């Protein structure tokens, strides 16, 4: 195929899902089956188009320096012109392979999973737009259009997490996700503007692959911040966007709540779209950090590495103490994303990209598998209870209106009843609590309500097992092993090999996290699939339709084989086998030309491999032993609950939500509540009065200075705060003209500041 055809195909690839969105929203929103299959078909079309492009460019050795690229002028701005376009470079090709595949499978899966939902077509419309935005983000050739798709995804995730908008928990989770990522996006915008002012271009290839520009950036001192180069500042601001979107500490709090949405949405967010987008962008800007480190400024890399390691460790520990099957996976996503960010922090570009790829496959698999389990258990529950819920007058409206999904799976409030009980009693509830009474809500997501599903849902079991083993890094046969091993090898090489403290820390933390990962994976699999069913619902669970099992099987295939594209060349035995297939180290060779500063590949070293084997097998084995026999019986407390206070701390997710509520949300709300009257009584009057008040306060202060210094001082401070409080009280009127006036005042102040202070 010619270059032009390929460029056209690339540009068209994101369109089918977006068209599907428009068509479903406008025309077919009453035909359920038609809408669903339209979404699947359009996504499949997009998949075919992307794969044609991917497999055409994949053999080109100069793809990094000479990417597939086409652009048109977007808008001429005086002397310059902003252009918009598409490009496929090695990193983009990798994503163009993974994203449409995962999206297609997830949408196909939704056909079965959402089949009882009343707002079925709306779901497919949103899901299509979500997938289309991610596709657009992947093929974007510049940061501005990437940002547009980035925000579109933010909107889609908001609507999908809040899909059950009539539930306060879902609504709150949607708002939380939107607001939290907004914090990161604000930083991203600042970084984008700063980068543009420094380079005059937002095109990835022009900025990131141009050593002159990068060196210029690295040598320019940053605005306002001493000791940081422009490259470092721009990179860190952009990393802020990653922190928000990829749920890194301290903005990780939205991701666990995001599972308030239906399970396919969780799979979408956790694997194929949202969180991958953050890492994808970080990898896109990797050269900024590399050049920074090259000229001796290691701060940006250090920050990234520390945040990544902290997140990896925190996520893994929290996942140990969760009972909700999806919540365990949510925290494992946070932890695995931490792995990737930490890998970027130590300069392991290829390893981060590789782990992102394999993680996308096995995490999508695990989420879809958990959805299949939940669906099965939910059906078992309905089988057992018959229609008793319809007889319950209080719930009848919901059941009639919204099928099982509205009250069944995906109904785990942030502060639901069961968690309150756990917290109240310290040692937590036991397995028995869940079916002691039919009156209370049955939670089909709670792993304590499962057990013994191995024989009931064989396909789900086998695929989930493959996904779990990949997550744990089961040696040699799973993708997760190869990608994690890659990160370990690089961390070991830079850390213990070359003596970089950050890499050493990353290595130690990641090894510990990997151990815990293997442990909680074993725990999850054992609790869910082994032993005897602990509830009637689990006993009557059954396998799902092919819409749901087929994606599982396909993803399980990739969860195994995706790892074989990057087996280290000199890995004992395996290296030679894959060398003969031309696959050994293929991925790394393919994408490392994207780096402007080449690092020599670490030679094969047995020590990290041994660590990797030990933590994977050790964690899995430990989990296997702990969660067996009596510990899987009904009524026995989970062994992790014996940890006491530590368990509570972990179960409540290190108390971040509580901390944010106390430190940020409540004071801000109080401030907002007390922030007005100014507009009513007149801002100008107030400013004048305030000036007089401050003046007279100062006069008072002078008068009383030599008499009662302490009293006078504290009075002044107290009154100043009171005056400020009065000034700010009730400014929040909700009236548009008042806001506009405030904005105008702010503009005047800023312009004055610029004219009289900055531009002097």
């Amino acid at each position, binding site marked *: 195929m010619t270059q032009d055809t390929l460029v056209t195909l690339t540009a068209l690839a994101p369109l089918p899902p977006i068209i599907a969105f428009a068509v479903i929203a406008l025309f077919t929103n009453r035909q359920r089956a038609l809408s669903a299959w339209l979404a699947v078909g359009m996504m499949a079309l997009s998949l075919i188009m992307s794969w044609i492009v991917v497999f055409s460019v994949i053999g080109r050795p100069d793809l990094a320096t000479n990417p597939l690229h086409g652009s*048109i*002028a*977007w*808008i*001429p701005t005086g002397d310059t012109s902003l252009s*918009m376009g598409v490009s496929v470079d090695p990193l983009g090709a990798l994503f163009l392979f993974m994203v449409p595949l995962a999206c297609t499978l997830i949408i196909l899966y939704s056909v079965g999973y959402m089949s009882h939902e009343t707002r079925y077509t709306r779901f497919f419309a949103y899901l299509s737009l979500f997938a289309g935005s991610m596709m657009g983000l992947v093929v974007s050739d510049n940061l501005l259009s990437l940002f547009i798709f980035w925000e579109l995804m933010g909107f889609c995730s908001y609507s999908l997490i809040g899909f059950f908008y*009539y*539930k*306060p928990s879902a609504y709150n989770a949607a708002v939380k996700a939107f607001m939290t990522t907004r914090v990161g996006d604000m930083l991203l915008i600042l970084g984008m503007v700063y980068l543009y002012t420094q380079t005059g271009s937002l095109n990835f290839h022009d900025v990131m692959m141009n050593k002159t520009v990068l060196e210029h950036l690295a040598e320019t001192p940053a605005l306002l911040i001493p000791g940081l180069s422009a490259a470092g500042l721009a990179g860190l601001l952009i990393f802020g966007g990653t922190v928000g979107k990829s749920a890194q500490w301290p903005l990780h709090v939205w991701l666990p709540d995001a599972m308030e949405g239906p399970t396919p949405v969780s799979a979408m967010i956790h694997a194929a779209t949202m969180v991958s987008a953050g890492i994808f962008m970080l990898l896109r800007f990797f050269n900024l950090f590399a050049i920074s480190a090259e000229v001796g400024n290691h701060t940006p890399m250090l920050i990234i590495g520390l945040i990544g390691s902290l997140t990896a460790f925190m996520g893994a520990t929290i996942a140990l103490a969760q009972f909700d099957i999806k919540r365990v996976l949510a925290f494992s996503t946070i932890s695995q994303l931490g792995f990737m960010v930490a890998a970027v922090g130590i300069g392991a570009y290829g390893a981060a990209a590789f782990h992102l790829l394999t993680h996308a496959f096995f995490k999508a698999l695990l989420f879809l598998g958990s959805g299949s389990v939940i669906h099965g258990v939910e059906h078992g529950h309905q089988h057992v209870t018959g229609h008793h819920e319809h007889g*319950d007058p*209080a*719930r*009848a*409206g*919901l059941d009639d*209106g919204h099928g099982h999904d509205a*009250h069944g799976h995906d109904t785990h409030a942030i502060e*639901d*009843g*069961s968690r*309150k*009980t756990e917290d*109240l*009693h310290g*040692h937590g*509830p*036991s397995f*028995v*609590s869940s079916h*002691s*009474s039919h*009156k*209370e*809500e049955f939670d089909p997501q709670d792993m304590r309500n499962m057990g013994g599903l191995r024989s009931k849902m064989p396909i789900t079991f086998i695929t989930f097992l493959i996904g779990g083993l990949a997550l744990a890094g089961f040696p040699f046969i799973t993708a997760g092993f190869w990608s994690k091993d890659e990160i370990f090898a690089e961390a070991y090489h830079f850390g213990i090999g070359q003596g970089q403290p950050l890499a050493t820390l990353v290595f130690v933390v990641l090894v510990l996290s990997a151990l815990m990962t293997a442990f909680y994976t074993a725990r999850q699999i054992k609790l869910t699939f082994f032993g005897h069913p602990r509830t009637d619902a689990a006993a009557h669970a059954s396998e799902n339709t092919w819409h749901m099992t087929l994606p599982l099987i396909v993803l399980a295939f990739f969860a195994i084989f995706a790892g074989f594209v990057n087996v280290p060349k000199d890995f004992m035995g395996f290296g030679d086998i894959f060398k003969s297939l031309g696959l050994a180290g293929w991925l790394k060779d393919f994408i490392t030309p994207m780096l402007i500063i080449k690092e020599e590949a670490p030679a094969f070293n047995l020590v990290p491999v041994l660590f990797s084997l030990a933590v994977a097998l050790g964690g899995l084995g430990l989990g296997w032993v702990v969660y067996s026999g009596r510990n899987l019986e009904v009524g026995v407390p989970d062994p992790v609950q014996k940890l006491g206070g530590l368990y509570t701390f972990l179960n409540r997710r290190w108390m971040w939500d509580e901390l944010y509520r106390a430190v940020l949300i409540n004071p801000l709300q109080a401030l907002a509540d007390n922030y007005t009257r100014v*507009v*009513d009584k*007149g*801002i*100008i009057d107030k400013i004048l009065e305030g000036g007089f008040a401050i003046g007279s306060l100062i006069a008072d202060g002078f008068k009383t200075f030599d008499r009662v210094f302490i009293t006078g001082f504290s009075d002044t401070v107290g009154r100043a705060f009171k005056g400020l409080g009065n000034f700010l009280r009730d400014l929040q009127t909700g009236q548009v*003209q*008042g806001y506009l*006036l405030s904005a*105008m*005042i702010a503009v*005047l102040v800023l*312009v004055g500041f610029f*004219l*009289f202070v900055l531009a*002097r």
Partner: protein
Amino acid sequence: MTFGQILFILFGLVTIIAAVMVVVRRNLFHAALFLVLSFFGVAALYVLLEAYFFAAAQVLVYVGAISILIIFAVMLTRGVMGGQSGNSQWREAAVICGILLVGLVGLLSPVAINFLGRNFGGLQWRIAGGAAGLPVVSEQILANLGMGFVDLNQYALPFVLSGVLILLAMVGAIWVARERHPAEVLAERKQIAAELAADAAAEAITTPEVAPTEQHAH
């Protein structure tokens, strides 16, 4: 004083005075009529600037379409007027706008003004043609503009997108302002209320879950 200067001052005064009337007249209908006058003044200024097409477009779009829309809106929402024209923050708004106006005039004034040790105004524009005076506007300029709108390397994309914007605005306007049957509104409100009530009931059922666990704990 040249003929051009006289024309400028004449049309400028018409525009400004009409604009002031727009924002101070209590009667909205009168304000809308003054708005039309102000738009005409602006159109005259376009003629002065030799942008004849834009003068015509100004008359067609603003005077013809937007003013009519506004007058319709005034008439459709009639009967709610009364009291004074300004809202409770009009004094502050006047002060802010005054400061802004003084600042802008200072910045743009042809002669330099010294304020707080800093010079404002007296900007030197790189006027086309230099000392020889402004060049004549090419006859081709409109044709060039039209070509630019269909040229992919110029404004084709923004142009197409603005067409989409107009379409969407039209559809949106019709959708927002459509007459809704009272029964439809009522049914929608009822459904929302039912969903909320059912949810509250579900919460109420979930909460007693504490009880059995407590028994187990003791």
